[in-house]
């Protein structure tokens, strides 16, 4: 029996994944900015409670801030389908429909980003890989996932060492575009070479341990799962499937009725209203 190091509150990775997928699918199906913002806020609160808010907040801000800015400029100023003009500056027109569309999309993407970042920042990757291997997901997928997430910090360290070594040999960063390209080449070639060299060694090590064998393997890692979590997963995925089916069949009750009727887009050269 593995020692009970984990607090019993830590959910099975599959439960967290099912919850994240269901939340994202239901938010998309409901498609109301109020619901999206509520989901994003709930994720923020959960992040604070689980102590990852300090890492999650900058990660989410880096993704969402340029996206929101881009949406605001794109739809806030230029929305040819808009009818209710709030301000008119020649080519640029601020319309209520455009601002509403930007709000809709911005809130939905915020919910989506927060849900999945919360999942990826709280999940224990080794647990996730062990659970997936037990579920007959190809072990190669687990290897790629875990290996990439551990390799990424190591490589940035390697890149810094290569840059220092090249600078000590006279590499000058900066200057004109051609010099910058030459500098990039002097860093990239050694980096790629050493990475491929390392990968070759890992391949031999993995092959020697029968990694590509087709037999099922036992795992040292025993990830706890409970009947309640299994039931929760089933309910969450069923709810998500029901919401998606309802939306796809066009039977969704219009809860908020946001007026987007003027938003008729035609492929490829639609006529604006």
């Amino acid at each position, binding site marked *: 029996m593995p020692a009970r190091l984990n607090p019993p509150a830590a959910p099975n990775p599959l439960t967290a994944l099912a919850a994240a997928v269901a939340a994202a699918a239901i938010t998309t199906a409901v*498609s109301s900015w109020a619901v999206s913002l509520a989901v994003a806020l709930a994720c923020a609160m959960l992040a604070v409670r689980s102590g990852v808010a300090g890492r999650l907040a900058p990660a989410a801000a880096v*993704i969402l801030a340029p996206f929101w800015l881009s949406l605001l400029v794109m739809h806030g100023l230029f929305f040819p389908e808009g009818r209710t003009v709030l301000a008119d500056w020649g080519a640029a027109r601020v319309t209520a429909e455009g601002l509403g569309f930007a709000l*809709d999309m911005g809130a939905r993407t915020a919910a989506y980003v927060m849900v999945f970042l919360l999942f990826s920042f709280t999940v224990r990757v080794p647990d996730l890989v062990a659970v997936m291997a037990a579920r007959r997901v190809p072990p190669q997928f687990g290897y790629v996932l875990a290996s*990439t997430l551990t390799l990424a910090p190591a490589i940035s360290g390697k890149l810094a060492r290569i840059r220092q070594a090249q600078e000590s040999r006279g590499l000058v960063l900066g200057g004109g575009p051609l010099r910058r390209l030459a500098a990039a080449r002097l860093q990239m070639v050694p980096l790629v070479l050493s990475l491929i060299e390392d990968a070759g060694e890992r391949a031999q090590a993995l092959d020697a341990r029968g990694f590509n064998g087709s037999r099922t393997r036992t795992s040292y890692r025993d990830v706890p799962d409970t009947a309640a979590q299994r039931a929760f997963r089933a309910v969450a995925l069923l709810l998500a499937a029901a919401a998606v089916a309802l939306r796809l069949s066009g039977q969704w009750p219009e809860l908020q009725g946001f007026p987007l009727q003027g938003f008729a887009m035609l492929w490829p050269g639609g006529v604006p209203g």
Partner: protein
Amino acid sequence: MSQQSRTLPAPGQAAVRNRRLLEILGAVSIAATFIFLVLTQPADITNGLAGGSTLVALGGFLLGAILLIIGVLPTLPTSTLVLIPVALVLNIALGQIMGSTGLPFYCDAIGTVLIAVLAGPAAGAATGALSSVVWSFINPTVLPFAAGAALIGFLAGLAARYGLFRRFYLAPVAGFVTGILAGVVSAPIAAFVFGGTSGVGTGAIVSAFRAMGDTLLAAITKQALISDPMDKAIVFAVVAMLAYALPRRTTLQFAFVRRFNVLAGKKREAPDA
């Protein structure tokens, strides 16, 4: 040890057929989703962008990418498999180096294209899709673009197979064509899932087309046709440079490179770099 365990059992005919079926289903799912989105979106979009388009775009493209991963991954030899995490990290790290050169391109497919050139179209497609899946642990907004990334890997592999990397000047041409196709496939995702593009620079281009009265999908497609072909031409040229900078001993480890004579021989015909 028994007699049979000396060699690994060859995968059965049925298993090979099943995997081939998964690959085909994945490609069909991606193609069908794209055609569906382009054909049906005018009627659908009048009820608000909320509707089925987003769910169909997300579901169809993701399903295709996952089927491709499950179908291709177990067939890859270990020497190729260990390169995939390296490629995924390269996508991120080299993107950062390119960013530091101050050039207005993102270059986030260098690792994918490198794998495709060394290991073939199937490995390239799986690497592209995996890249999006794994990267989404850090930035969830790249996950919906998995199908486009798979297409880039697949096309790069095809280009390598038919000798476009044997001449240095042909590689950017192949990249340009790949960029056109990848941009067209990715545009519906940007339009229907996110309602715009994430960068402020690309957002400005989309805004310009919107100001001329284009529909959102048309504007984003045109923006993609401006940015993506140039970006992919650069990526393909960088990969060609890297592939020729690697020692021949390293590149010839790959059966795909040997079988299809992907890279020009150094003695007989030097690349016109």
